[in-house]
Structures are given as C-alpha cells and as structure tokens.
C-alpha cells in the first residue's frame, strides 16, 4: 500500500459538491503534481485529508496513512500527523504566517511540537532550517516579522516551518502562484533540492502544467472535483488522454516554433452546485456525444500508470517517446 | 432563584439596610444628637452660600440654618417679624430705625458679634462697593433692589445701631428681615481672598456652621454649640443635591435620606404608600402666575390679554395637578397683608365664551403668540403650561409653546418673539409695596425692559411707596390691583405655589410657609 492513499474522498459545502470521489495515492519519496483550474478541488482534497476544512463541510471517504484511516480521526491522533508526518504550505505566504509573531518563533513552534526542542537547541535548529531553505542572514532574520520579508522569503519561511517537523510528505498548495517568475524558479528549485536531500514525498498543487511538469514525476489532472487523468509527467504531454488535458496543453502559447492559433477550451468550469449530469466536461468538449451527457466516465487505464476518465480515451503503447519522467531530478543548478 | 428562599432574601435585605442606616437611626436614640440628610433638587443656583448672590427659592431653603438676620420671620407660623439678632427695634422717624442688638452672639469662628459687624454687613465692602474690597456688579444691583433707599448704619454703641434711609419707607423694618441682611463676621470677611471666595464660605451666626460645601453635590452643616439659642437639636444637617425626582424619592425610601424636598403632588400618594414616610407641606407664600409682554404686537391689545386671563382654568389645575393641595389666591396678594388684603378682589373668571367675545372684539385672527416655558423650573410647570395652552387653543388663541432651557432664553429676542412666560412672586412683609412695586413698578424689571408699563400704575406705585396715609395707601393698592390684573392685565394669577417635603414619619418637624427649612430646636423632635 502506498504511503498515503486517498480513497473515494468527497467533500460537500451545503448543496455544492466540491469533491466528487477522489482516488489518489502518494508513494514514499514520490513527487506528485495536482493540476487543475481554480475551483476544481485541488486544495480542498488535502485540506479535507488533514481535517482542516471548516465544520460546515461534509467529508466522506478514507485517507489511509501507512494503512490507517486518518479521515475524521480524533484530534489527538490527527495533530501529530499534521506537520509531523504531512506538512502543508500555502499559496499566499504573507497571509499564511501569523503577522504578529516573529518568524523564528513560528518555526520554533513546530520544532517544539514535533521534535520536543526548546530554548537554545530549538533556536539553533531554526537557524539551521532557515539556512537550509536559503534565507540569508538567518541569525538576525530569526527576529523578523513576516511583513518585513519579501514574498519569496516568506515562502521560504513557510517551507522551513514545514521541514521543522521532518515530515514524510510535503503538500505544497500553489506555492509560487503569488510570486514573480524568477522567484518562482527559486522556490521550485529549492523544493526539488530539499526533496532530493531529505527524501520526503511531495504533492505539488498548481494550475500551471509547466510548473508541475518540471518538478513532479507523476501528474494528476483535476476537473470539477474529479481526477480526470493521471499519468507519469512525460506521458501527460506526449499522450494526453483526456480532452481537458489536451485543451490545457493547447491553450499554452508555445515558446518556440511558429506561432499558431491557440486551441482554447470553450465555455467555463461548471459551478459546483450545478454540475451537469454525465461527464462534467461534456458541455465544453468538442468530442462530446449524447453518451457523454449520460455516462459519468470512470478512469480508464490507457497504459501503465496512465488512466483517463473519458469514454473516448484510447489505450496506447508506452515508451514511444524518449522523454521519460525523471526530468525533475535532471535539473542542474547552473549558477550558484 | 430556587436555592435562595424568601426568608434568606429578607434577612439579607434587612441586614444590609440596617448596616447602611445604622449610624443615623441608631444615633437618634443614643445621647448623641441625630444627623439628618435632606435630598434637594438643587442646593444653590449660584454655587455660593452668600444670599447677596443666591437670591433664589433654593437658597431660601438652606440659609436660615447657617445664617441669621437682625429681624427674623415666623416662618412656621404667621410670617410675622420676630427678634433674631436684634432684640428690639424702634422707629425714630420716617427714615430712621434704632436697633438693639442681642448680646453674646458668637460667629462660627468664635468672634463675638458687635455693632461693628452689623454695620459692616450692611456696609460698602459687602454690598455697595466703593470700599476696600471689590464687590461684584450683580451684588450691588441686588442690594440696591432689596434696600432701595438705604443710606448707612450708624454704630451707637457696642450693641446698638441706627439705620438711616434716604427716603420714606413704610416697610423699613421688614427689609431688615431680608436674606441679604444676614449678619457676617467682619474679620472673617476681610480675611477672605476675594468677595467670591467669601461667598462660598461665609462666616455667620446660625445654629449650624458650614463644614463642607461641594457645589452641585453636598452641603454639610454641623451643630454650632455656641449658638445663642443653645445647642442645636441636630449634630449635622446634610443637603444632598439630587436633581431627579425619582432619585430623591428612592434615596428616601432606601434610607439614604431623611427628607426629600420638592415632591411633585402626583408623587405624594406613591411616597405615602409606604407607612414609614409622610409628605408634609402645602401652600407657601409664593404665587405662580403667567406674565404677558405688552410689546408683542398682538398682546399690545389689552382685550387679547383679558381674553387670556379669562380662559385660564385655575381650579382645574389645582384639582388635577395639585390634587387640591393648594389654593387660588385673590390676585397677587397675601392674607398676611392684614389691612392691605383686599378681600373682595376677584380673579378674572374662567369664562371661555367671554374670552371668545373679547377676542372677536379685539379683531384677533389667529396670529401666533409665543409662550416660553422652562422645563419644570416650577413644580408641574410644563404640565400647567400644556393645560393652559389647550384651554387657550379652545377659545381660538394660537399659542406656540416653546420649551427653553434657562432664563436667558426667555428674554431673548425682540418684542415679536417674546410673548408669554411663567413667573412666580413671593412676599414676606405684611405690606404690598415691596412685592408689587418692586416687581411691577417703575423700578421692576418688566417696566425697565418695556415688557409692561402703565402710566397710572406707575404713579400709584410711587405713591404707595412714599405715602404714610394708610387709608390712602389701601385705596391706591386697590386701584393698582384693578389695573394690573383686570383692566390692563400684565399677568394672570394661577395658584399659590405649594412645597411638599417627604420625610420619615417618625420625625416631628413642621414645614414653613415658604421654601425655608427650619431645623431649630423648637421645630425638632424625633
């Protein structure tokens, strides 16, 4: 069994279904990308798994951590997991840090909590962690407040805080969306390095296929509360099986080659409260037939590790393309 | 609530009441003299205790406890003049009075009162100006109004003085009982930093001495055991300022006070519902009336004013608002005027039809007449004003009721904006001259401010003040009343004011026929 196994997870806020049965597993040391447009349920999946959703949400399904279901577990069991085994960082680092506490204290809090460190020992470890995530002048910055740091530095603080509990899995929820391109590159690079150094697993949530493709070995594409396609990252680009994935790829302007007219997905994401019957993507899909409006397709295996939830998805032979998925580790930091 | 029984509640309440009231009630039974607390609406309008600056009803209430005049009044009885700091007095001629002073009178500072002190009390440093101390302007004015022809006091001996007046004054002795004539210690006065400093802490001769005065809050008087009448009956008298009627009553009911003054008639039943308390008092020598401004274009016509006087239902007001506890006087005069009391003088009758007829005759066409009213400056003033307004409206008068905050706003503006307002009049001498001529004669403020003038009345007023022919003076007085109340009305008399004081039922104490509260030996037993 995988390290974390999410099984048939569904979340509803009142009458609107945010998640409609998610199945996702993360192996130890693996980097999984979770891609989708706003409102597709990427973040909700992991907030639900860790019990961080408000009480108004109805959560069903199971989340197996090392074979034990932690979904709806009592606080006493859940609290050591949060930050200790599964850590999470969020989109807007400035808002995710407590504005009135010094960053050293915020990192130290996790150390005390999960590793029982206090006083000078904790302080030394905080400095080490800050060094590790590349915050310059850590010894002084320990006393800084979040508002005194830039967005990129704050995200590094968040990462240091997440590392403090020595988690086995880091869930990074759109960690670079609020940041500039060059800073985004820094953070992605840092995450990759850290993963290489610590061997922890990572789930990278992003709306940007480019971001996940570089960092993750496996990618799950979400649409309207479902995973519609899941594959090793190379295969997603070489053999996109779901029309939505194809649409996403087609709408990205190319960086090289001749400029072509972009292939866009018409229409817009359905509202959670007004989900169409059948395939949720059918109204926007140029392949859709009457069948699509009736059948809600189940994931269909297309190749090893590759499945897509589309009735028209066609199985294929793997290894046609030489660009295999180890790209994330092939990064080389040229200028350091 | 289930855990606490009724008995428990009662015992707690009894215990706490006792604890709170212990010092006062207990001391009443011991050899030590009791102390009383009096809840009043106001202690002093001017925040001073010197009667030259505090010419008000509320000042009248307190000053007799700490200050004395040469001649006193029998406040509880017939208002007659009595010896106080003077043992006897004698007219030398029309303009001169000799006074023998009481011996052995001590001031609160221990000094013995001499003729020097008396002469000083009536002297330039205290009231006329031009002496060594600067006297506030308004003090000089008040003094001149109270003693219009005063010349000087001559010291004839250590305990004998002679008062010189510059003109004939039939009521000169009576004027010596006026509150401004409180006798003060010359030494203490001269030691005060300024006139106003003195005014807040005068050193006088009364049965109680001022121990603490916190303006707008509390006045504490303590027994002055060297008083010439002997030890006063109370160890202490505290006047606690409590502007809210309900608060005063509550203070009494909760044991925080032994007396609550200025009780509106409507509250009498409420207070007396509790057998521990009693409301005493009744009509006093103060008459409520409503005055007209002759300069107002509509009110210039005497017919309109007559109509106003004929549509006031005095008896209804007395019956409803006062529960019949006061009376309607025969015009602006008092029965203690003696021979000067015109017993057959009638108020203008309540006669709406006559009023309507008068208005028709006057050609009145609903022009608005402003009526400025202070919010319950007088007891039940607002209610009375609303009753009058309704009655006036009923006969076709267009009265605009305007509530104002203070006296200044009543006299604000030109003749058109001033119309009707409320007033009261008090007399303390058995002669109409001081009251009537002082208020409405050429020396009075309505005359000076052009509010009401009548040439014939003016002449008669002067004659009333200068003539010594009693018969003639009575005739003049009769005619004056006729002019000012019937022919060319300056005001309409409503009723006698009444003062009601709630007190502990076990205290034997009699209210005065005025606002004065008398806490001397003869008026106390508990």
């Amino acid at each position, binding site marked *: 069994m995988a390290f974390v196994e999410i099984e048939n997870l569904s979340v509803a806020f009142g009458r609107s279904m945010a998640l409609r049965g998610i199945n996702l597993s993360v192996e130890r040391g693996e980097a999984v990308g979770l891609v989708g447009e706003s409102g597709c349920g990427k973040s909700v999946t992991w907030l639900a798994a860790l019990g961080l959703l408000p009480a108004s949400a109805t959560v069903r399904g199971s989340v197996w951590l090392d074979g034990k279901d932690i979904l709806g577990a009592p606080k006493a069991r859940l609290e050591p997991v949060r930050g200790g085994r599964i850590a999470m960082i969020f989109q807007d680092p400035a808002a995710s840090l407590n504005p009135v506490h010094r960053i050293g204290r915020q990192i130290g809090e996790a150390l005390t909590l999960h590793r029982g460190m206090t006083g000078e020992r904790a302080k030394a470890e905080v400095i080490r962690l800050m060094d590790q995530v590349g915050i310059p002048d850590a010894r002084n910055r320990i006393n800084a407040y979040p508002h005194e740091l830039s967005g990129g530095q704050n995200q590094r603080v968040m990462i240091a805080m997440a590392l403090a509990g020595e988690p086995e899995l880091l869930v990074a929820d759109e960690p670079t969306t609020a940041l500039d391109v060059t*800073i985004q*590159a820094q953070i992605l690079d840092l995450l990759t390095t850290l993963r290489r150094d610590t061997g922890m697993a990572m789930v990278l949530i992003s709306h940007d296929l*480019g971001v996940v493709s570089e960092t993750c070995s496996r990618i799950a594409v979400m649409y309207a509360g479902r995973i519609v396609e899941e594959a090793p990252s190379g295969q997603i680009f070489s053999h996109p099986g779901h029309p939505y994935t194809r649409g996403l790829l087609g709408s990205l302007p190319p960086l090289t080659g001749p*400029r072509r007219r*972009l292939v866009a*997905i018409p229409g817009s994401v359905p509202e959670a409260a007004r989900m169409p019957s059948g395939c949720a993507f059918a109204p926007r899909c140029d392949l859709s037939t009457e069948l699509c409006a009736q059948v809600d397709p189940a994931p269909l295996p297309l190749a090893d590790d590759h499945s897509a939830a589309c009735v028209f998805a066609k199985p294929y032979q793997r290894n046609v393309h030489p660009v295999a998925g180890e*790209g994330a580790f092939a990064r080389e930091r040229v*200028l350091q | 609530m289930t855990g606490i029984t009724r008995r428990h509640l009662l015992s707690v309440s009894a215990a706490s009441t006792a604890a709170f009231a212990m010092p006062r009630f207990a001391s009443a039974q011991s050899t030590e003299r009791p102390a009383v607390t009096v809840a009043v609406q106001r202690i002093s309008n001017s925040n001073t205790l010197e009667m030259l600056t505090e010419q008000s009803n509320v000042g009248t209430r307190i000053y007799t406890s700490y200050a004395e005049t040469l001649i006193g009044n029998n406040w509880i009885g017939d208002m007659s003049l009595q010896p106080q700091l003077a043992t006897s007095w004698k007219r030398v001629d029309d303009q001169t009075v000799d006074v023998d002073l009481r011996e052995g009178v001590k001031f609160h500072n221990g000094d013995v009162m001499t003729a020097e002190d008396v002469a000083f009390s009536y002297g330039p440093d205290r009231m006329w100006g031009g002496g060594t101390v600067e006297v506030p302007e308004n003090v000089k004015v008040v003094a001149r109004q109270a003693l219009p022809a005063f010349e000087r006091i001559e010291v004839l001996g250590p305990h004998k003085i002679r008062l010189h007046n510059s003109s004939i004054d039939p009521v000169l002795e009576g004027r010596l009982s006026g509150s401004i004539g409180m006798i003060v210690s010359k030494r203490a006065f001269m030691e005060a930093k300024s006139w106003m400093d003195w005014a807040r802490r005068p050193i006088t001769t009364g049965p109680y001495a001022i121990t603490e005065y916190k303006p707008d809050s509390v006045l504490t008087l303590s027994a002055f055991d060297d008083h010439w009448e002997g030890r006063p009956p109370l160890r202490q008298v505290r006047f606690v300022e409590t502007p809210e009627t309900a608060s005063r009553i509550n203070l009494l009911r909760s044991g925080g006070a032994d007396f609550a003054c200025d009780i509106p008639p409507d509250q009498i039943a409420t207070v007396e519902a509790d057998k521990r308390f009693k409301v005493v008092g009744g009509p006093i020598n103060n008459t409520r009336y409503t005055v007209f401004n002759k300069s107002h274009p509509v009110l210039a016509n005497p017919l309109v004013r007559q109509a106003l006087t004929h549509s006031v239902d005095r008896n209804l007001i007395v019956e409803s608002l006062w529960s019949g506890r006061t009376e309607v006087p025969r015009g602006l005069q008092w029965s203690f005027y003696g021979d000067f009391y015109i017993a057959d003088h009638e108020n203008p009758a309540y006669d709406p039809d006559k009023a309507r007829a008068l208005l028709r005759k006057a050609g009145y066409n609903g022009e608005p007449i402003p009526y400025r009213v202070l919010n319950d400056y007088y007891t039940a003033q607002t209610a009375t004003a609303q009753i009058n307004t309704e009655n006036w409206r009923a006969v076709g008068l267009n009265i605009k009721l305007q509530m104002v905050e203070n006296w200044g706003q009543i006299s604000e503006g030109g003749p058109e904006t001033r119309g009707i307002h409320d007033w009261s009049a008090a007399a303390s001498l058995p002669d109409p001259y001081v009251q009537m001529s002082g208020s409405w004669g050429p020396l009075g403020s309505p005359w000076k401010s052009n509010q009401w003038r009548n040439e014939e009345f003016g002449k008669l007023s002067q004659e009333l003040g200068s003539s010594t022919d009693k018969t003639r003076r009575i005739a003049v007085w009769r005619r004056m009343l006729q002019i000012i109340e019937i022919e060319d009305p300056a005001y309409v008399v409503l009723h006698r004011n009444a003062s009601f004081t709630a007190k502990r039922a076990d205290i034997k104490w009699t209210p005065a026929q005025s606002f004065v509260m008398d806490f001397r030996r003869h008026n106390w037993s508990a």
Partner: protein
Amino acid sequence: MSGGTAELLEARDLARSYMMHRGFLGRTTQVRAVDGVSLSLSRGETLGLVGESGCGKSTTARLVLGIEPPDEGAVTFDGTAMPRSGTSNWAALRRRMQMVYQDPLQALDKRLTIGAQVAEPLDIHRIGTSAERRERVAAVMAEVGLQPHHAARHPQSLSGGQRQRAVIARALVTNPDLLVCDEPISALDVSIQALVLNLLMDLQERSGMGMLFVSHDLRAVRQISHRVAVMYLGRIVEEGEPDAVLQDPAHPYAQALVSAIPHPGKTAARVILQGDPPNPANRPSGCAFHPRCPVATATCRTEVPVLKPRRSDGRRVACHVAHGEAAPARAPTMLETC
C-alpha cells in the same frame, strides 16, 4: 485620423516618481517607478511590455494613456501632444485610446448591465443616436463573441472569459486607434487565457489598431506581440523581435526571465537569479540589475548602461557586458535555452 504618417504613439524619456509618505511628518521617499522609458508604436502593431511586479510596466501604460502626467518626457499620440488629464481635450481623446484591465470583474461596475457598460463610452462621448448606439453595442458584442442576451446580464453572472470579453467590447465600441492591455490574462484561468489572446489577435487584425500589451507572461507576449520590450526597475533593458529576444536574450535579466519560464516537457538547465527584486525605493547604483546579475562587473556597479543597438545584431539592449564594454565577471555557462 490626422497625421497618418507619424507613429501612432511616441513616448520619449518618460519618467514618473511617486512620493512615499511615512506618516504625516515622516520622511518622504521618492520612488522612481518609471525612469527614462522611450517607446513607439505604429498602427497595426503590438508592443509587448514584459517584466516582474514593480518594474514599472503598468505605470508606463498609464503614462502612455495620459491617465497620469509624466514628470519628465512627453507622449505624442497621432502626432499631437497628450493633453493634461481631466481636461476636455483629454476626455475627448479617450474614444481613440482604450484600455483592458487585469481583473475584468473589478473593471466592470457590478450594478450595471453589460449592455449599459458597453454603451457607456458612446454615452460619455455622445456618439450617435440611441438607436445607433444600440446597434453599435450589439455589433461590438457579437464581434467579441458575446451573445445578445448577455447584454442584460450583470458582470457577476458571467464567467471570467465573458467578463473580459465585455471589457474588450467596451474598449472597442468607439473604434479606438490604440488599445492598452494591462495584464489582460493574468487573472484568468489557463483555458480562458487562450480564448482572450486569440480574440485580441483577431480584433487587431481586423481593425488595425495599435496595441500595447503589458504582461509578466513571456509566452503570452511572444504569442501576440510584434515587438517586445523587457523592463527592469523602471527601465527598458532589452527590446527586439519576440522570437529573437526569447531565443537569444542579450540582457542577463532577460536571460534569467526566459529561463525561468516553466514549460511542459522543458528539461534544459535554468538560470536561477539570487535574491529578491530590489525595492524601487532604494535603487542600486549603476546598472540596477547588478546585485543579482551573474556576470556583473565593476563598471556595472557604477555606470548606468544605455539602451542602444548591439553591434553584432542590432538588438537594443542596456547592458555593459552585452555590449562588450565590460568583461563578464564569470563565464556565462548557460545562455542556451530550450
């Protein structure tokens, strides 16, 4: 359309500073948001303006539109100088220069229908009779791909893409000569971005208007622009054909920017810039990029490089190293991109 031969838009040496107040009495610091920017744009042409947050690209857009006056320099539109903001000449010019915004929901009035808002420029400039206005609104809505029934809807009941179409329709209803797009796609979902880019390109092709396309997204800029200018801390550091700039960036910053673009399947090495973009309030001396520049020299720390054509290929770039005026501190090891 007077002065047909002149460039549609000319901006010379624009500079704009803001005063940053610290409290009521506090020191005021001058922040030069835009510092000596010159650009020109002809009809039918799209200029892409790229840079990271705080580089002054949006301020440049506002200066070009005359919404704010520049402290230095001048803007010429169709041969005439830009009137002062708020004057009636300025207001009249609005019908010829329009703007598309980053967040369409914010740029639209939630209380008014789409139809009313698309018609608003016509109302303001009193163009046509009411019947003509209705006709024009219907036409322009059809042109941007909105259904007639959308006219009666309110912005919140439309999807993000439809809202941006409505904003574009409002901008186009007066047939402007210049369209300034300030980050028009960055608030939109990926799938919608493509729709808007396609639409803008189609519209330009049809109307021949000039377009200034401000974005931090190099891919989008490449897609739509005829020329691209890269800004860093208020200055243009490189300018040229999009393909040339993207494939062979001359300025080290442009190199880093290009290499930072995440792209599916991209495997090549990447330049990772160190440190954060500096605060515009304390601008580094010399070349503003030198503290982060991998190849900075002593010259870069003291002398401000001028934007001028490179000798080798005529690319306009502002870098001492690129011009060979200073030897690179370290050999640039990468400089090949995907």
